[in-house]
């Protein structure tokens, strides 16, 4: 299932709507990388509210994605991770170290504004 990615000013917002397969995650990574380059986006919010599980592959792929986007000039914020999903991640031994996280989309966008400093075309 393809994750919808919305362009909002200089930001991109990817909202995961359902459980993702490994292929879905890899595709999300590729599409975000392509769109950040094409639109010269400065920030990306990935909303994981609908994600049932963050296993080792999903955590690793998201971490790689954030690093890749940073190299292309965009800051990434992960939002919406359910508390029980976060707890399971920690028990498993995974973390999202080095990645900014926020409670929800609104907080995520506010954090991006702080990090990349808004500028022309910014959303809020």
């Amino acid at each position, binding site marked *: 299932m393809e994750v919808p990615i919305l362009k909002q000013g200089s930001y991109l917002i990817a909202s995961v709507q359902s459980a*993702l397969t*490994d292929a879905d995650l890899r595709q999300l990574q590729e599409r975000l990388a392509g769109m950040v380059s094409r639109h010269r986006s400065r920030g990306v919010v990935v909303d994981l509210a609908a994600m049932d*599980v963050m*296993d080792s592959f999903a955590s*690793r792929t998201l971490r790689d994605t954030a690093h890749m986007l940073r190299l292309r000039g965009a800051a990434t914020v992960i939002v919406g991770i359910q508390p*029980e999903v976060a707890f*399971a991640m920690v028990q*498993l031994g*995974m973390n999202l170290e080095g990645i900014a996280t926020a409670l929800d989309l609104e907080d995520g966008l506010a954090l991006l504004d702080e990090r990349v400093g808004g500028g022309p075309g910014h959303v809020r």
Partner: protein
Amino acid sequence: MSDEACVPINWEVDVVTARQRGRALASELGFSRGDLALIATAISEVARNILEYAGHGEVTVATAQDGRRRGIMVVARDEGPGIADIALAMQDGYSTGKGLGVGLPGSRRLMDDFEIASEVGKGTTVTMRKWVP
């Protein structure tokens, strides 16, 4: 229990199916939301290992009973290459692939019981249980 299931693991999407079937059974058994996430995560790890190292296999989720305790039993079975050194494979950070080596030791932490049997050239069976508190 109606939600017992055997899920063949051949494709990536089967990993998602396996953890969803496990979650459904665990939910029926009365596990909390938090426990459902732990169980689903462990199933995801062992199912992915099947796909990655053996190519195919199956994950069975069933009700476990031990005296008055009830819980969920997850069995991940494959006839892949097997694991030469199980103690090493169970160590955090050990991976022969491009992983972080958290799948097996992490699943052991997520569940109450964890057993692994493996023979080189024959295959691997991981059996995990979690009891309803």
